[in-house]
């Protein structure tokens, strides 16, 4: 009998199992954005002095990471390439997202691009933003 025609029940079962895992997932992806999905997910913290943007983007090639500030918007770009020396043919499971991403976040306050700092540690990008001088809150003294 031609090998291609042979029914291989165990292989079929494994294929079904993989299909089920793909459809229903076998994990709890709660770290993903609850808003359904722009990648990468972000957290934003503001205080009187500065604004901190935290970006969850593990395994990004550092040289591809790019943060730019224009007006009140921050644009994040990066790429996660597949691991070298691991071929597609030997892949048993693929859940991680690969490829390039770009996301623009409107902060709602004018920013100073010259005073922006970013560092990437443990797969989390942290961007320290500074308000533009004209957007810094000024204390108004009230006269009689």
């Amino acid at each position, binding site marked *: 009998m031609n090998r291609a025609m042979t029914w291989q029940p165990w292989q079929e079962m494994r294929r079904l199992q993989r299909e089920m895992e793909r459809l229903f997932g076998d994990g709890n*992806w709660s770290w993903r954005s609850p808003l359904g999905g722009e990648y990468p997910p972000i957290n934003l913290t503001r205080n009187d002095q500065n604004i901190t943007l935290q970006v969850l983007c593990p395994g990004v090639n550092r040289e591809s990471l790019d943060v730019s500030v224009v007006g009140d918007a921050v644009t994040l770009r990066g790429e996660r390439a597949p691991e070298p020396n691991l071929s597609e043919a*030997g892949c048993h499971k693929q859940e991680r997202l690969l490829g390039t991403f770009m996301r623009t976040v409107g902060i709602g306050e004018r920013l100073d691009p010259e005073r922006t700092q970013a560092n990437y540690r443990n797969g989390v990008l942290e961007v320290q933003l500074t308000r533009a001088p004209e957007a810094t809150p000024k204390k108004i003294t009230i006269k009689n």
Partner: protein
Amino acid sequence: MATTTTMSRPSTRTRDKNDAIAVERATRTVVPRVDIYETDTAYVLLADMPGVASGGLEVTADRDELTIRGHVQPTMNTPDYQEFELTDYHRIFVLTEDLDTASITATLKDGVLRVEVPKHPRLQPKKISVRAE
């Protein structure tokens, strides 16, 4: 294709007090996303665990189970706008006896854990040299 590595949900067995604590912790963890590759000599597991420093990582192989855990430093301040929460990670994989669990290596870089589980030498392809007569 030989599926030597299979997945399972975190175990809920309660054997002793330590296990009970582990189960309690497991309720507050997320399952990291993984890729699994097979090469001629090993299985390679890549797991996304952003926020985990190398000191917060735990990889254990016990009999037929490979467990990965990642602990993240909780942050004190709540963000004004939040799309993600950094939580501890936990996932268990089932290993078969065809793997050399004594030689497992694990590295962590930029929030990605890479675990390499070598195949038993007897299962690795051998190059047979042919002598010319």
